[in-house]
């Protein structure tokens, strides 16, 4: 038997009262994979992310990492196992400096205790220095141009996105979940994001994206999972998904109220 996949989601279900947000979602992510989850607004993509990372307790199904069940763990425990994430609407620590934001990702790896901090022992100084150096490294990696000593909320939007990715990378993940990383970015920034995603993959980190920008999704993904009304309607390579009539129909049926012909749909997706 081969080794279990890095991430395995099996028959994941989540309902709030009578509303079913995720309805039997299953997919796997292998080491170093890039997978995108797409679907119209309200399809349950972010809910699925929240279930995987422990923020929601799924009503059914199982999430495992390397064959280990992580379904009931709290978010910090999931993060400690090597699953890192960003949020759909930026969740930076706005009043803290950019560097402090990235240091948050290193929390579990900074070796010091309260006594070290009170006495400023050599161990304290060393761990602080390492944390700062590593924070700078990750900010270099994501190509941050802005002031690193500034409060994070004062950076331009695109820069804040980079800081959030740097923070997630600083956690040292094996799997990185990005919730709409291209939202609100201009064309140039999107190209830089594309480049960044490639470099993240080169580090051996598997990526799962939720993304609406189809150009980006088609270009970067190895596999695409399509959701609609919490149900998985397709899972395949960009090529397969692009040509899947069910996807084209479902995708446009809810996103666009006006009836759209197949020709328009083709244009939208490619």
């Amino acid at each position, binding site marked *: 038997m081969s080794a279990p996949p890095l991430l395995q989601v099996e028959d994941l279900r989540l309902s709030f009262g009578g509303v079913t947000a995720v309805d039997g979602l299953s997919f796997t992510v292998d080491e170093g994979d890039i997978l995108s989850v797409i679907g119209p607004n309200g399809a349950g993509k972010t809910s699925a992310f929240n279930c995987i990372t422990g923020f929601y307790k799924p009503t059914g199904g199982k999430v495992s990492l390397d064959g280990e069940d992580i379904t009931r763990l709290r978010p910090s425990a999931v993060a400690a196992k090597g699953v890192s994430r960003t*949020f759909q609407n930026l969740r930076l620590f706005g009043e803290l400096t950019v560097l402090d934001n990235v240091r948050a990702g290193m929390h*579990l790896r900074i070796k010091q205790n309260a006594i070290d*901090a009170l006495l400023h022992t050599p161990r304290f100084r060393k*761990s602080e220095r390492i*944390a700062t150096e590593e924070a*700078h490294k*990750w900010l270099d*990696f994501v190509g941050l141009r802005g002031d690193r000593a500034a*409060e994070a909320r004062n950076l331009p939007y695109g820069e804040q996105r980079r800081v959030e990715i740097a923070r997630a990378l600083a956690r040292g993940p094996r799997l990185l979940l990005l919730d709409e990383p291209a939202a609100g970015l201009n064309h140039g920034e999107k190209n830089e994001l594309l480049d960044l995603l490639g470099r993240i993959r080169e580090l051996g980190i598997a990526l799962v994206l939720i993304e609406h920008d189809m150009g980006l999704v088609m270009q970067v993904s190895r596999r695409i999972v399509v959701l609609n009304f919490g149900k998985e309607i397709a899972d395949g390579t960009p090529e397969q998904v692009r040509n899947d009539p069910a996807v084209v129909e479902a995708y446009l049926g809810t996103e666009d109220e006006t009836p759209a012909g197949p020709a328009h749909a083709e244009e939208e997706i490619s």
Partner: protein
Amino acid sequence: MASKLSSLMENRYLGWIGLAIALLAPFVSATNYSLSVMTSALLFVMLAVGLNIVVGYCGLLDLGYAAFFAIGAYTSGVLATRYDWSLLATIPVVILAAVIAGVVIGGPTLRLRSDYLAIVTLGFGEIIRITANNLEITGGPSGIFGIPGISIGGLDLSSPVAFYYTCVVAVALAVLGAARLGRSRLGRAWRFVREDEDAAEAMGIHTYKVKLAAYIAGAIWGGLAGILFGAQLTAISPQSFTFLWSALILMAVVLGGMGSTPGVVIGAIFVSVLPELLRGAADYRYFIFGVLLIVVMIFRPQGVWPTHAVERSARKRRTDDDSTVEVNQ
């Protein structure tokens, strides 16, 4: 002018300046009255710095902080008067009692969101006071008398001047300790929790443990201040630990600037000394005090000396020419 002021506010020798002022103050006026006012101000600073860990760093609203103060004062007072311990020897027991109290109150309540937490802590403050009022060992409503002064070895530090300087040393260490904790890994985690609990969790920070740590740290600071309080007054009673105390300490924190050490120190001095300075106004002094507080909060809602993010290491940083540093996993 404004930049001059802000550079003064970032001065790294600020702590030494504050210590020098505290050390020199008795040379300006050393009457028993002024020493007592200044000693009370120091205790207030210690309490405010402790509460600042909970409210300022971690963003948890605590309306019953005087409870920890009471636990420290009673623990050391009972041990000193009934079992003849020296006050210094009670320190470890007070710390232990504060930790236990912090866990007992914080344990179940820190899972609550902030508004509920405020109500529960308010109730807890009252429970401690009423318990002290009804227990025999705490002397009931009349409290404990004859708490000895502090002495180290054979050296008696109970004269007003000696006690004042003892407090200067103790409070300086407390302020330094709180500030250092605030700039450590744990202190950052407190701020992450304050800013965004979910994002902190996503970074692997166990937010519940981090909040409990803030609560326990605050309890220890409050408990230790309680020892000094008992030594200063030589007598304590349940009336010493009313809700007004909790409110005044919280006021010092908010007024000075939540999360800012210099701000909180100034806020504490302001809140404790101002009513004394207004004694000339007789019956109107608390009225004037109240009006002044309202005015400050209207014109400076962030506090007189607000905190703002500072990056100590950033100044030393190389210029950004090598923006493609290789990152090794």
